[in-house]
């Protein structure tokens, strides 16, 4: 995604002239630096619970009509999925969108081989936690420990375990995409490879 097109480090001509609430200032900057579509896309990319177009519009600082228009576009491209709540359509980031975004970033930084060995490490880490705390999941751990403060060591462990579990799922999906890309079977660009060659990545 090209979010780096805004000119870096602009000095605001009116900077420091008057006392203004920073929350208002950063909101104005954001609206100036981005298009309505970029803001709607930015918000929905981080929206994992079904949310109305009116709420998305409010958060993206656009009109509900504009939000609906861009959300429909993003739905057509698979970035967004919907659910019905009576008369109201609720929108959220689609699993396809989540996996695609993650795979793109990860494959830019790591080779499929590195991802494969990383997956083994994440699995081992999760198994270590299961053994050490004698529970199957971070949720079971949370119930047993009755974690009150997310700032605590126990809160940090819970967060780390839940994060590792999610990143494991994302890494596995990324590896599957990398493998499908390598064989070329999805696009028909490499029909020689039957997927059983020695260079295949062991998942």
């Amino acid at each position: 995604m090209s979010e780096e097109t805004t000119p870096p480090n602009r000095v605001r001509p009116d900077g420091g002239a008057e006392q203004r609430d920073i929350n208002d200032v950063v909101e104005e900057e954001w609206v100036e630096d981005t298009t309505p579509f970029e803001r709607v896309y930015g918000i929905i990319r981080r929206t994992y619970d079904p949310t109305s177009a009116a709420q998305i519009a409010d958060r993206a600082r656009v009109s509900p009509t504009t939000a609906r228009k861009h959300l429909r576009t993003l739905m057509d491209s698979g970035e967004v999925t919907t659910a019905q709540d009576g008369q109201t359509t609720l929108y959220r980031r689609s699993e396809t969108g989540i996996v695609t975004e993650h795979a793109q970033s990860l494959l830019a930084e790591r080779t499929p081989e590195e991802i494969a060995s990383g997956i083994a490490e994440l699995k081992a880490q999760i198994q270590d936690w299961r053994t050490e705390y004698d529970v199957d999941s971070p949720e079971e751990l949370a119930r047993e420990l009755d974690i009150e403060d997310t700032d605590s060591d126990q809160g940090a462990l819970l967060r780390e375990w839940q994060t590792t579990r999610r990143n494991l799922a994302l890494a596995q999906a990324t590896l599957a995409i990398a493998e499908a890309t390598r064989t070329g079977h999805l696009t028909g660009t490499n029909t020689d490879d039957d997927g059983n060659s020695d260079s295949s990545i062991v998942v």
Partner: protein
Amino acid sequence: MTGDEDVEPSQDSQPAEQAEVFGPIDAGALREIRDLVINQEPLVEEASLDDPLNPQTLSVDLSDGVEAASTARIDIRWSLAGNYAVHYTDTQGRDFRFDCHPKPDAPTRHFHPPPDAPSRPVEPSCITVREAPLVTRAILQRWRYAYTNGTFEGLNDAENPP
């Protein structure tokens, strides 16, 4: 929903049964924040995820610190539920944190003041915006305030001139 106002937990974006936890880290949000920070703050020397495959924290290294500090670092966590923890530390051993997550008997958005950012007591945070790009800009704006003025005084005051 009223956008940036403080709302009841039931109206928050996170499901009720998840309300008391920070929740899993959002790798995509960390990358988005990384790119914005690099773009916005000239003193950023490096901004990187601790582990690309299993990121838990974005660390932003700054080539200068507040007042006598020669360098500083800002560590950022951001969860799927929109919870965050932002921790400044410098070579003079000064720390402060701008956080947003459930904390018993404390506001969800809270500030752990310098010089040592204790777990308690905390103050209500001056940062009331919610979206990642807005919170990131607000954090950078508060860091710039402290850096430019050479003081932590008034750091958690939203109405200091930018």
